[in-house]
């Protein structure tokens, strides 16, 4: 048994491909837990960052700087009364949030956090991701219909029309990136997520910069479409509260509503991961081809550790700036403890074996975090599109450009 467990450590592949059930389960648990924690962190960060965009403080009461606010919210949501409208279709009403949640989480099976850090590597990886994430439309439609009320129904119709429309432009952009994997000496492309990153490694270029500006345009299309796909501002029409109150989840409350939120944030992280994998070199560190050599490797491998130490320092500065009143004693201690944990992680990341295994994940997560921040930034900056304008952007702007880029990329690939 122990052999079965340790044998995987020597293998240079994902647990899924190695057929090692134990490690696969471990990875699933880690990814599931990690994503849940990330969603909670994202929730806090969004409220905090949005508040600072809007010259507010955001949550400040629960825990130091509101760090425990998401937990308090979660407890509140779990203990809230669970309301199902009288005329609702109970079964569909009940299953809709689960479908969204399952669709968003299943996607993580193929996301490569590192060359071996993925639950499995399917050879249709990207296709699988697009397919499964398109299933969440079903959840939206079902939720809107099952509520048996006008506003949710209109919200879900808008939402699913939007998601289906943007899926097409998104798919075209993805195909452009996949096409780029095959433009090498041997002429073999791949749909596998790990394979795509490895292709970028072999070609010594992030696809963002390949055939400049073609790679960049396709990336931009994807970046716009993915915001629409996740129903976030400025494409948050289904949830346009000034028109439709809360869109398809108007009738939901408590735990079920929080499942929708969990699904939304999970999907945001998932599509950002696709963008990172396809265009930003996945787990590869910045400048892999210009800043080469052992020294640079060392320098970049130290960055994760320093990042966490830096966060710890910020936490300790926060401790110093806490009011000295005894009322804040627990909060101050909590913040100091949080800083200490961050610092400890930072120090752990300097140990060479850990460092080498972790730094892939660090770079991947760092790139995804940039996208998460962009989501918040969009939300603070942009007004909302109108429905016909949204459709116009999707069908008349993004789709033709995406097809054009695809064709030009294909021609360039044949010519060069």
């Amino acid at each position, binding site marked *: 048994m122990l052999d079965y467990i340790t044998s995987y450590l020597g293998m240079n592949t994902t647990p899924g491909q190695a057929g090692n059930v134990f490690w696969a389960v471990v990875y699933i648990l880690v990814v599931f837990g990690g994503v849940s924690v990330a969603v909670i962190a994202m929730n806090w960060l969004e409220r905090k960052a949005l508040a600072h965009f809007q010259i507010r403080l955001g949550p400040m009461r629960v825990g130091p700087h509101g760090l425990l606010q998401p937990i308090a919210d979660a407890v509140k949501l779990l203990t809230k009364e669970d309301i199902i409208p009288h005329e609702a279709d109970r079964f569909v009403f009940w299953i809709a949030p689960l479908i969204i949640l399952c669709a968003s989480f299943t996607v993580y099976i193929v996301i490569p956090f590192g060359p071996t850090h993925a639950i499995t590597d399917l050879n249709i990886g990207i296709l699988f991701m697009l397919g499964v994430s398109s299933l969440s439309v079903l959840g939206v439609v079902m939720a809107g219909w099952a509520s048996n009320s006008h506003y949710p129904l209109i919200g879900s119709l808008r939402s699913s029309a939007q998601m289906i429309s943007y899926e097409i432009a998104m798919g075209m952009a993805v195909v452009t990136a996949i096409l780029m994997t095959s433009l090498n000496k041997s002429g073999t492309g791949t749909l596998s997520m790990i394979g795509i990153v490895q292709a970028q490694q072999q070609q010594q270029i992030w696809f963002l910069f390949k055939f400049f500006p073609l790679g960049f345009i396709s990336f931009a299309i994807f970046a716009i479409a993915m915001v629409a796909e996740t129903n976030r501002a400025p494409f948050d029409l289904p949830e346009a509260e000034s028109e439709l109150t809360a869109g398809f989840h108007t009738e939901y409350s408590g735990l079920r509503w929080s499942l929708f939120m969990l699904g939304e944030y999970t999907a945001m992280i998932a599509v950002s991961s696709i963008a990172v994998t396809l265009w930003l070199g996945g787990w590869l560190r910045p400048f892999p081809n210009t800043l080469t050599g052992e020294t640079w490797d060392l320098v970049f491998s130290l960055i994760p550790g320093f990042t966490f130490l830096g966060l710890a320092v910020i936490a300790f500065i926060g401790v110093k700036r806490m009011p000295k009143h005894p009322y804040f004693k627990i909060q101050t201690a909590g913040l100091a403890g949080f800083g200490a944990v961050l610092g400890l992680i930072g120090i752990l990341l300097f140990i060479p074996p850990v460092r080498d295994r972790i730094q892939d994940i660090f770079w991947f997560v760092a790139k995804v975090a940039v996208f998460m921040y962009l989501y918040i930034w969009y939300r603070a900056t942009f*007004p909302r*599109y*109108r429905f016909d*304008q949204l459709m116009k952007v999707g069908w008349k702007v993004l789709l033709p450009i995406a097809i054009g880029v695809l064709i030009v990329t294909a021609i360039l690939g044949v010519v060069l």
Partner: protein
Amino acid sequence: MTDPTTYLSHLELGEPDKTFLDTNELIINMGPQHPATHGVLRVILKLDGEKVLGTECVIGYLHRGVEKIAENRTYTMFNPYVDRMDYVAAVSNGLGYCEAVEKLLNVEAPPRAKYIRVILTELNRLASHQLWLGTHALDIGAMTPLFYTFRDREEILKIFEKYCGARLTTHAFRIGGCQYETYEGFEQDVKKFLDFVPPRIDEYEELLTTNRIWVERTRNVGKISAADCKALGVTGPVLRASGVKWDIRKALPYAAYPEFQFEIPTGANGDTYDRYMVRMQEMRQSLRIIRQAVEGIPEGPIMAKVPKVMKPPVGEVYHSIEAPKGELGYFVVSDGSTQPYRVRVRPPSFVNLQALDVMVRGQLVADVIAVIGTLDIVLGEVDR
């Protein structure tokens, strides 16, 4: 509640597009409880898909009978009531009423009082426009301007609070002048505000003016021509955005306005974007007026000689001012007693709201929200 379809009976509604697949028109109720109707406005929409075929406003949910109250109060007692109509521009309401009664009494406020009135009214115009901008942007989906405008509006309310003790329903003026002399440091406060606010207005404009989504959401939305504006009696920024250079402060000046120099900003297309631009420029013009007023404020008394018990001679007078929303008129009839025989308020929001139907026909549901926002109505004034 009455069946909403009965309301639509009189409208000559457009017919839905006849196509191979016929769609039915849909009648939905927006409000009175709806986040985007700015209070308790109820709009009944007749839709073909998302296209608006016709609307009908149902108002009166906030009716308090202000005009009836006026007939049962003395001239002085009625003064605070007018603040409750357009509660985001209470100072303007008070100015209009005080000047109307002064006209009836044939007295004139002393110059210093007039200057104080201009300063406070223009500050109030700024506050009203800021509130409008924040809520209008929020309706269209931009959250952030709301907080920026409220931050700066706070400074204005602080000045009001220091001047008269109230922030919203100020009751700042009395018939014949002002009750309070400016507090110590009033001019410094206003000047500090004048220096602080122009970059903040730039900040709002940075977020919206050239924002592509904002422009697309507002340009060619809720268009109304100058002729329609005049026919429908629409006044204020809505009229000016349609290209009519008309402002009561210039056309029929009152208070100390003839002494100040300012421009009347106008638009060309009469769409929501133009109205936005007009109001933004009006904010800057207001600052210009305030600066001139603060720098040129004369010394002297602040109260004209008015009797304690006011008994205006028998007669009637109509006086109107340029409120932030448009022409705010008071028609006061005196029968020689201490109580007004009749006070009629000509509310700009009420008359402007009538143009909603013209502005949204043929547009989409989302535009209805944008148009309600751009009309800048306050339901307290619509329903009185």
